[in-house]
């Protein structure tokens, strides 16, 4: 009967040649030992195949490229979260200021429209031998917009007098 320890050492090839021959001869009359040895071999075979398959599946090509890509993705996620935090804190402030700026610009643009020359002559006095005429010049570009002109005409008697 082959002991468990000797069987394992036999399987691992750790026995001396003489001892290995002895274990081999004993195994011929030991079905249980043979069965145990067969299981050891099957287990080694399975482990070997699994390791080989894992090695085949592993792709070490461009490993650093992929590592860098992952690092960048993590950085992007961190930046995105920082922006979200900033937006959460100051978003309403910035939006309010932007609205105020736009409204202010609109009001300023409205008030900075074309200058009106609208004028009302409330009273007018002309000198002797003079005639004043009040005229308006309409601006066709702006409805209702007109410029007032006072035209003073002196008679010949007064022209050239100091």
């Amino acid at each position: 009967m082959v002991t468990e320890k000797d069987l394992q050492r036999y399987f691992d090839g750790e026995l001396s040649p003489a001892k290995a021959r002895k274990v081999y001869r004993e195994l011929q009359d030991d079905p249980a030992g043979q069965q145990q040895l067969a299981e050891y071999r099957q287990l080694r075979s399975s482990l070997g195949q699994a390791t080989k398959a894992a090695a085949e599946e592993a792709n070490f090509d461009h490993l650093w490229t992929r590592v860098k890509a992952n690092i960048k993705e993590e950085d992007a996620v961190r930046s995105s979260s920082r922006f979200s935090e900033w937006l959460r804190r100051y978003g309403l402030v910035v939006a309010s200021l932007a609205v105020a700026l736009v409204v202010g610009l609109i009001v300023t643009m409205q008030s900075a429209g074309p200058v009106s020359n609208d004028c009302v002559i409330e009273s007018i006095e002309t000198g002797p031998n003079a005639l004043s005429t009040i005229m308006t010049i309409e601006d066709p570009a702006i409805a209702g917009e007109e410029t007032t002109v006072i035209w003073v005409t002196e008679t010949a008697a007064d022209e050239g007098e100091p």
Partner: protein
Amino acid sequence: MFPRFSTNGTRSVIAIAIIFAGQSLFGSTNASAESQAKTKLATTATVSCTVRSMLGSQKAGAIDKRLSFLNKQLSRPPFSAYKSFKLLAAKDLKIAQGATQQLVLPSQKLLRLSFKEKLLSAKNKVRLRMHLSITPPKRKKFLPGTQFSIANGGTLLVGGDKHQNGTLVVGLTCKSQ
């Protein structure tokens, strides 16, 4: 849902922005509603007036580039009778409310300009009540006096004074300060 803010200062900025926006949007509307009629502004205002002396003549030429803002007016009657307009002089006068400033025109006539008061018309627009006289020195001729109210920044034209084989046109542009 409003986000939470870390400081009271942040809230203050928002409040100021909202107040500013509100005033910009609704301020002028309320003011115009309250001042449908012309209203005197009880302030010690000052106006800045520019007096431009222009010579319209039959000499070939064009409208002086410095008068480009009057191109439309000077291209229509009665000014369209002239072939050219030249700016002879331009002078700025600052006139306090109730005060009078004067200057001598190229025709040697004396221009006197008084700022009477500042008015607020519909739509919250400022108007200026002024008094103008253009006369020979110490004589009550030509245009001894005219009172007018004009839109803030508007221009009044006074023409007819003979000068250098042409006609002198005086442009008065006044703006509240």
